[in-house]
């Protein structure tokens, strides 16, 4: 039987370790940023340069960068099924 204190201590240590890991990896991983900002975020028009109403130049052709890596297409779609 473990006491509350022991459990709390363990949890705290875990959180501290985890925080350390997160900060560390976030500092170095350009991949994580690219994986988000090039492909995600609010998109206000279709791909490439498009004029929508008064919005002029919106560049969304950046997928070009990622898809230029041929294998991306090969690996498209993860093997896991997300239950909806």
């Amino acid at each position, binding site marked *: 039987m473990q006491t509350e204190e022991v459990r709390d201590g363990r*949890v705290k240590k*875990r*959180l501290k*370790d*985890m925080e350390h*890991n*997160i900060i560390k*990896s*976030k500092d170095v*991983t*350009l*991949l*994580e*940023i*690219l*994986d*988000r*900002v*090039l*492909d*995600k*975020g*609010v*998109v*206000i*028009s*279709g791909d490439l*340069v*498009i004029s*929508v*109403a*008064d*919005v*002029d*130049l*919106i*560049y*969304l*052709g*950046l997928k*070009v*960068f*990622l898809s230029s*890596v041929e*294998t*991306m297409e*090969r*690996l*498209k*779609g*993860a*093997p*896991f*099924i*997300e239950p909806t």
Partner: protein
Amino acid sequence: MKVQGKKLIYLYCVTDSPQSRPSDEKYTISCGDFYAVAGKVRKIDFGEESLKKNLADFEWLKEKVNIHEQVIESVMKESSVVPFKFGTIFNNEENLIAFLKENEEELRNNLNYFRGKEEWGIKIYCDMEYLKKYLGVKNEEILSLKNTIKTSSPGKTFFLKKQKEEVLIREANKKINEYGQHSFDKLKKYSIRSVINKLLPGEVTERNDEMILNCVFLLDKYKVPSFIIAVEELKEQTVDTGFIFDCTGPWPPYNFCKLKKSGTAE
């Protein structure tokens, strides 16, 4: 002929509160009761002609995506944000304001929705050689094949070894699928929404191991500690198996924000 006339307006995100210490690089434009965080950028960087060329320049891209992320993260520290995609550019402020007005209600709804929530990302990698080694001492089918090999004639051994290799690959894939699904299901319980993203190949990750799961979760802030503990538990379960967890956050909710009217211009 001053540079001013040649600047474009870059939209980073919309947020609840105005930015302190505005500069050309980062300032706020108010729209009703929320704000857009924008910056003035050069045509030589983000003009239509230059951009295509610049995107092929990895150093340029690295610098600019880092600025994009840093600006949004600095805003996120103080308030709720709705991040826009990299390179969302307007010719002038009037056009940006018109866009904000037109989408005012939906942007505000988004801001309200994301208040008190954080995006966290999980990427799981697998070192196949390591996993095969693990299965070699743990998997019963493989262990029994190993035993048979020991007592077989040299001729038979050749085929048995080949069979063992096939079983290893099959069992490794099975394990990867089970483990990925199990991890995702476990972490999903803590989240409000979740998304499974494309796996990134080694050329992009620049790692020797293989990505087997790339997913993101939208969490209520108060659930983050439990989520992190769950991640740690998953990590502990996999000591020696060759699975490597990469957990990052908090991120702006890139994977979860959307405008209904957006997408393709139909």
